[in-house]
């Protein structure tokens, strides 16, 4: 057992868990943060995306010990912020959501991208989303969603 201290969605959290346990399992099973999805469990699909210290990571292949001292943001935290609401609204408006299983991960990837490039080109958006698989939308409307969030959220990013 390891004792891990970190911040999750702004609050300090102490976790007692084997250190190699997947962050994904801790978030979903222990903390009830079910916006974080499991689509593959091997880093391929991005459904489990969260931000660690502002950077996009896949929680399914991140051992919980590795987030010691880190700051984790899931969609449960992001949706309470103005930036989060901006992306969520933009996704809803552009038709970026179909079955929705990839969507929380896509929203996190969009946030990570916009934190870094406040005014991304289409190609930059596509690169930013390239680790998040979506089988429903064919991506175009998600790309539009991110572009709309960038435009609407000017000043936020």
């Amino acid at each position: 057992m390891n004792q891990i201290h970190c911040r999750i969605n702004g609050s300090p959290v102490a976790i007692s868990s084997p250190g190699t346990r997947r962050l994904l399992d801790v978030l979903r099973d222990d903390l009830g943060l079910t916006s974080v999805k499991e689509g593959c469990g091997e880093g391929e699909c991005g459904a489990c995306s969260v931000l660690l210290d502002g950077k996009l990571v896949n929680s399914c292949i991140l051992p919980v010990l590795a987030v010691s001292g880190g700051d984790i943001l899931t969609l449960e935290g992001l949706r309470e912020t103005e930036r989060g609401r901006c992306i969520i609204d933009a996704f809803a408006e552009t038709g970026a959501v179909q079955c929705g299983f990839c969507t929380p991960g896509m929203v996190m990837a969009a946030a990570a991208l916009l934190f870094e490039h406040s005014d991304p080109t289409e190609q930059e958006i596509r690169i930013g989303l390239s680790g998040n698989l979506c089988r429903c939308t064919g991506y175009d409307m998600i790309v539009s969603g991110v572009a709309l969030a960038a435009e609407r959220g000017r000043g936020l990013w």
Partner: protein
Amino acid sequence: MNDSISNPVRRVDAYDKAAGYAQYLADMKFEGLLYGRLIRTPVSRGVLTGVELPEMPEGYRYISAADIPPGGENRIQMIKSDWPVFVSDTVRYLGQTVGILTGPDRQRLHELASKITVHCRTQEAAYTIEEGLACRGGAIHGDDNLFADFHLKKGDPEAAFSQADRIVEDTLETGFQEHVYMEPQGITAEWKEGKLVFHASCQCPFYIRKAVAPSVHMPYENIIVNQTTTGGAFGGKEHFPDVIASALAVAVYVLRRPVQVIFDRREDMLYTVKRHPSQVLFRTALDAKGRITAMDIDARLNAGAFESCSPIVLQRTIFSANSVYDIPNVNIRGRAVATNTVPSDAFRGFGAPQGIFAAEMHMSHLARELGTEESEFKRKYFLAKGGKTVTNGTVREEVLLEQMWSRAAELSGYYEKLKAYPPGSYRGIAPAFYLHGGGFTGSGEQEIINGKVRITGSKDGSAEILLSNVEMGQGTATTFSKIAARVLDIPLDRVKIANPSTARVPDSGPTVASRSIMVVGKLVERAASQLRERWGGTSDESVLVQYEHPPWIRWDQETLQGDAYPCFSWGVCIVEVSVDPGTWEVETLGVWTGHEIGRAIDEAIVHGQVIGGVNQALGYGGLEKLELSGGGFAQHTLADYSIPTSLDFPKVTSFLVENPYEYGPFGAKGAGELVFDGAAAAYAAAVQRAVDRKVERIPATPEYIMEITEA
């Protein structure tokens, strides 16, 4: 802006999903939940000789055929019931369910599962269509391995062949395709007040109820299936959930505790159903002027180990084998071949993509052979209103393909690009034309489904739609609501629609065959207009309506003759590619599509279907290689099975042409599958032009393109 129903609205499910509130199966909590792991056969074919179990700690159970309750039968009731819940003797495919291990802790369960050894006597297996046809290792099904063997005839092909100037032969092949719904398969079952209750990520709640009833010998009233918010399905959750549910039914019957099975992605990729691989052989008779006078077509599908819905998939394949073309004389044979692979099953398009790929590529090969420009050659044979289909049915709508073609050609700069990039220039552009018959084949809607829909209006001015078709991403929660809101003349947010439960909703049929909007949406429209007459928004009222077959449809299920579908949706797709001369990697430079689906209930939702469908089809055509390896699949991770990412294909240009259909709500026809049907052929034909070699199969991977160019 006009107030057409097609104007986009914000999807009713978008916010909850985008903000992470939507609860999928894995997100739901169940008191006292046990986890289940399916224990599987290690061989593709043989006989089960024993299962060696480790010592089971308290709370852990292994449940198998021996636990089926008295009166229960070891079979899953699909269309047929050849697929057993648990293997008791004969093994037909690798990974077939032998038993289910249950227990409270997943770590412990995993450790126990890895200590179970399943012993089988191995027999020689048949994996491919050829091996299946040759009954390698003896017949798996019947005495010829054919789940179905259909014959169609239009005109007088024998006469036409006997007068042919020349005959051109061709063989087209397509591979397996995995659905890759992002949410893997999963079901939780529980025992509640004497009832067996399922929570399932699925397309067809009533199918599950029917499927499990025999195994636990329970009446339908005591089986409830609740659909959970479903993270994609594409046909993969049409019949396969029956397989998981049946094992769970027996487990929960015995344990009286909730049990959950959620597949790991690899398990999902290895052991769930796939799109049927196909092989279509053409012989085409040409007259002295190079006109097609007749075709002889032999279509074979690899159906896998159990029948599931393969005969019906095969019907779509052969009914689509002339694509949008009116060929005067045609002979078609179609066979669904049993093999020892995971059963092949429904997948967006349901057999049509295979037929259309073959037809489009064959037409494209004929154009090459005759030295005619491809679009010009194909357009000469377009079906028109009054034209005859391969089942001798009648096309009843105006066919707008010419109009769609001009628009697509203009948008893509087709003719300029043809000139600029001659064959073999490593750059190519090509069209595909396609159609999709709306709804169930033949008389299925009337004789098998007979769907019902209820709408209730309450005193508070809101209405609720009750039906069994599920929202799985395709947008029906929104489009059904739009139809009802529009007819009832109430705001969209006053219409409720929930994930269906068989305990609450009438059976409006399965969520398949692009029937939801066209057929069930029509029922919603009818129910809403009846309700509107009685309900002023101040009382509680309820209306139930039932399917009515369009009176003019003639269909004979025995001979497969007549109007296979009441109407068709139509499509055109142009793809432009460049091929790297060093690595044969393909870069898709543009995709232009036009569709005629009657009328869109929501343009944004339809465009979402188009773009998603086209990407899935381009994956099918170029990327998604799924090869058999020792009875399993060589590509069984998302690392090795490549579905498109955001960088693989460019933005898709999509337009719609209206042509309202009288029997669809607001004139709507089916759209969800049509949009998958053509892009793979357009891609393959574009590659073909770029390298100036015949492309005969998909996926057209760089390895394959190298083989044909270096040959």
